């Protein structure tokens, strides 16, 4: 609804956005949630689909997983901020949780840091995805903290690319 883009000839996406290409495709993953303030421990399995959207200015991830606390779905949007030279990350999760923060990319390592809002409480959030050199697999670790000093493991997962990104 409210949008404040300038009426100007179409710009091109920043070349930095291409760094997210490694996440594009359809992935399946398995792993484990750790017991903590967000719920009990237990196995998790799910699917994740990443694609570039809106003239490839943004990356969209769609997540579905079966977790110890039930099924969770999520929508992720990554936007590149040329002023901050990093990605602005927003996750919207079923159950009403949100994650907002920054994503930095170094090679095949994707590191998120930000704020998790869950069940009316705010946590600090860190997540690192390492994509394998052949771009067919990944490992992910996430941690949360109530005070930004003491960090608790939240989940660990391993994923496999089930379907490549469509060729353009």
């Amino acid at each position, binding site marked *: *609804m409210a949008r404040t883009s300038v009426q100007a000839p179409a710009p091109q996406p920043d070349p930095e956005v291409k760094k997210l290409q490694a996440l594009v495709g359809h992935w399946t993953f398995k792993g484990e949630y750790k017991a903590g303030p967000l719920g009990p421990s237990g196995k998790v399995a799910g699917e994740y689909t990443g694609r570039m959207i*809106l003239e490839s*200015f943004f990356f969209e991830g769609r997540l579905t997983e079966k977790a110890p606390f039930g099924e969770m779905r999520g*929508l992720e949007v990554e*936007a590149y901020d040329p002023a901050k030279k990093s990605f602005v990350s927003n996750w919207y999760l*079923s159950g009403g949780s949100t994650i907002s923060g920054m994503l930095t990319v170094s090679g095949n390592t994707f590191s998120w840091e930000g704020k998790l809002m869950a*069940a009316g409480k*705010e946590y600090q959030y860190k997540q690192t995805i390492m994509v394998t050199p052949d771009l067919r697999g990944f490992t992910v670790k996430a941690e949360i903290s109530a005070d930004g000093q003491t960090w608790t493991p939240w989940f660990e997962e391993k994923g496999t690319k089930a379907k490549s990104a469509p060729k353009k």
Partner: protein
Amino acid sequence: MQRISVLLLVLLGCFATAMQAQALKPDPALKKLSVLVGHWTYEEEWKAGPLGPGGRITGVYDAHMILGGFFLQAEQTEKRAMGEIRNLEVDAYDPVNKHFTSDTYMSDGTKSSFTITVSANTITWAGPFTVAGKQYQFREPMVFAPDSMSATTKAEISVDGKTWTLAWEGKWTKVKPAPKK
């Protein structure tokens, strides 16, 4: 002692389950956004200013609740003098600060993040944004007709938060209401 421990575990388990069940219900405040749900068409008259040369814009806007009803997602396509722009909007309720947030991702690479307030028949988007390195304030109230099938919008921008300049005015018509549950 062991019985007490077992009882405590059972009680803790019930509490945790209750917490999760409670957490899975959207905040009642989200119902305030339901007036946006549906398929809309609109016409707007943009004024020349920091956002461009101005002109007439037409568009369509489709909004629906997603992820268990916790968020509103809208896809918007509009025709401008410079070409077509598509947007993805996601609105969320922040129960801590007791307000809505609205993120819009646009096909020209722009991202805006505003706060939404809802009062009676008016939904207002407001907040700061930056164009060409200069920061502005933005506000756009959308006033709905009593039957919620049409609305008017009036967007304004300001450099100092005191003097406001009209950015655009629009008329919106809901051509397809939200599906009945």
